[in-house]
């Protein structure tokens, strides 16, 4: 049975196709601004928990639900989104999924799409579709739900998401003052031990690390957990001419000049630079700047997939 919201969405998509309008799916517009040449499909009204089964470790949520609302509901049952999504200001779960954003726990708990179990969506023909489900283990059919994480609304309108949730854990943060290169080496060495880590970062001359559960006494200074909110999302004040890059790299990769912060055990670097400082770099001002670094065969695949879900190109391209 198709609900009224989905029905309306289908009609809106079909009408836009007839009118040759480009649709842009939005949440709180905290990460991607609305383009002047598009018609907005705002998902904010489509909010709320559809189903929550703490003991099954699964929550199904409408895509317009605010991250703060979702995490509050989970916290009541001592659970959390283990991918620690950054909140850019009223960010929604749909927008977070669309941009595939993961927080500091990434090297230890995984990325956003690891926790995606299923999706409901409406494609570019206005068809309601369902992929995946509520099960942690499910290998029936291609994994469309995980594939679309990061597609920024360019293929379909995601209306519902089923996510794996994890128990909330008590975490404590410690820091040590040391040079960056030394800290990057140390955080990677520590990540290879059984110390229960959930975060490793370097910021303002300090190596910060976060530990959960039972662990031995640390030879470092304990501090509060606020550093992880400074880094997630990382939004430093920039001069008018400065360009900030989000760089993804191998954890132990050497220091990059003009790095403001190192996160995710070295896998994430925030760098000031005029040019892309490394292969996996995204220009990051107050929002994402799309990048185009796919090889021709990969670009062809992505274009082909876009056409599968949105043959009339009614949704704004990436």
């Amino acid at each position, binding site marked *: 049975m198709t609900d009224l919201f989905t029905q309306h969405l289908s009609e809106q998509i079909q009408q836009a196709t007839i009118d040759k309008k480009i649709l842009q799916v939005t949440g709180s517009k905290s990460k991607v601004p609305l383009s002047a040449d598009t018609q907005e499909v705002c998902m904010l009204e489509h909010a709320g928990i559809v189903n929550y089964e703490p003991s099954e470790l699964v929550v199904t949520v409408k895509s317009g639900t605010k991250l703060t609302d979702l995490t509050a509901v989970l916290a009541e049952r001592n659970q959390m989104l283990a991918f620690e999504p950054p909140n850019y200001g009223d960010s929604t779960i749909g927008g977070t999924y669309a941009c595939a954003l993961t927080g500091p726990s990434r090297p230890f708990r995984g990325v956003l799409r690891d926790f995606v179990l299923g999706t409901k969506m409406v494609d570019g023909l206005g068809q309601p579709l369902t992929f995946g489900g509520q*099960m942690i283990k499910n290998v*029936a059919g291609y994994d469309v739900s995980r594939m679309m994480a990061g597609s920024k609304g360019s293929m379909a309108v995601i209306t519902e998401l089923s996510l794996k949730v994890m128990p909330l854990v008590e975490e404590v943060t410690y820091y040590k003052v040391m040079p960056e290169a030394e800290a990057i080496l140390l955080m990677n060495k520590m990540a290879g031990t059984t110390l229960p880590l959930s975060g490793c970062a370097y910021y303002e001359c300090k190596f910060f690390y976060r530990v959960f559960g039972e662990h031995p006494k640390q030879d470092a200074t304990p501090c509060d957990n606020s550093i992880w909110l400074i880094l997630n999302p990382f939004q430093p004040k920039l001069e008018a001419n400065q360009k900030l890059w989000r760089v993804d790299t191998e954890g132990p990769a050497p220091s990059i000049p003009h790095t403001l912060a190192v996160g995710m055990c070295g896998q994430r670097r925030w760098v000031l630079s005029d040019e892309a400082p490394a292969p996996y770099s995204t220009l990051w001002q107050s929002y994402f700047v799309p990048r185009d670094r796919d090889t021709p065969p*990969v670009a062809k695949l992505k274009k082909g997939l876009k056409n599968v879900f949105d043959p009339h190109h009614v949704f704004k391209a990436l």
Partner: protein
Amino acid sequence: MNIIQQLKAAFPEGSVIADTEQCAPYECDGLSAYREKPLAVVLPSSIEEVKTALQICKQNQVPVITRGSGTGLAGGALPLKDGIVLGLSKMNKILKIDPLARTAVLQPGVRNISVSQAVESYGLYYAPDPSSQVACSIGGNVAENSGGVHCLKYGLTVHNVLSITVIDMDGYVSVLDEKDDGIDLLALMNGSEGLLGVIVEVKVKLLPKPDTAQLVMAGFDTVTECADAVTSVLEQGIIPAGLEMMDRFSIKAAEEYAKVGYPLDAEALLLCEVDGSFDQVKVDTQRITEILKSGGATTIRVSQNEAERIALWQGRKNAFPAVGRFSPDYYCMDGTIPRKQLAFVLEQIDALSKKYQLEVANVFHAGDGNLHPLILYDANKPGELQQTEKFGGEILKLCLDVGGTITGEHGVGVEKLDSMCHQFPEPELKIFHAIKQVFDDSGLLNPGKAIPTLHRCAEVGQMHVHNNNLPFPELERF
């Protein structure tokens, strides 16, 4: 020149097998009820040779069935009689181990277990552990998105792969990386059953080996109490490394087989393993024991040392052959269900068992809802095989009805094409076919598998085990 001559001309001697006898080992995978002799088997030893093989197949419009170790249970690597089997077993080198970054770069034919063995000296291991891990290959693991007993805590293959290198039918080589922006092609390739490309290199995540592991075994008077106890453990915020349940029949069979001291008076048995640092494991074991006690466990045993832990697992790990001793044949299902539905589903399976007059033993990965009912039958009795298949079909339908899926970890292959039609409506199936078209417009990569055609959803078959002779009998199946 025909295709066999072309392949033989392009490859070193011994790399192309075309005679019937030598092709025999490639006629089936772990689903041995289905067999087909391919045109030829090609065994490349490099990326360049894979490209050559694909190019020749493309020129001749001949289908390609990529094969790792052939341990899959759903017929995903079943040959086509007019197709080539591309066996990647020669590409079995570990190309790079980076202990500091905790990664390893592997050729697709590397066996799952050998990754952990190779990095053991660094205190690291590769987490996904399908029961066939001593034989199955990493390329096959990616193609099937293989799980394992520990996947509730450590994830499936998709959660542990950082990048892959794939080749398409036109010979283009692409690296798909977790760090890529936009549409997540790496996630899509996991579990795509050889339909979207040939995986020629895999970079995996390595984890620090836990200091220790401890197993808590508990018997219960009812399945409901046992399932509720699992719920309580998870609700208390503990994610065990392994959470396995067995029903009365399985307990009895396993105990008779392995003699490990399972409680024979229990209706349901729970094996709950925690791992991690010594301190954490101690705390968790104590908490779990308390939860299970207050949940009505009639017997509780906590492993006191590594030998006892391994011994207690033996019954569960041998449950399939143990059950198999009670009947000439059995048929293994692989549905998933929400755990809260377990008691209801087992009740329904019991009713179906009476209806079909076929016995069933149930083992259950309780943490992630993956149910393996084993239907006992005798293929020599006229009509019993057909009855068993109907029974199995009803079980999968039941899994779907309670909100589960038709396959948790074995994949669709040729085995569950029929059930796919129950799980997915036409628009979704059309999308799947269109995705395949994007990656493989020639339709030559493992055609006819994993996604049923809209017109014909009729190819059915399951893991049939005759006289307890499992394909790959040396492998544990759990």
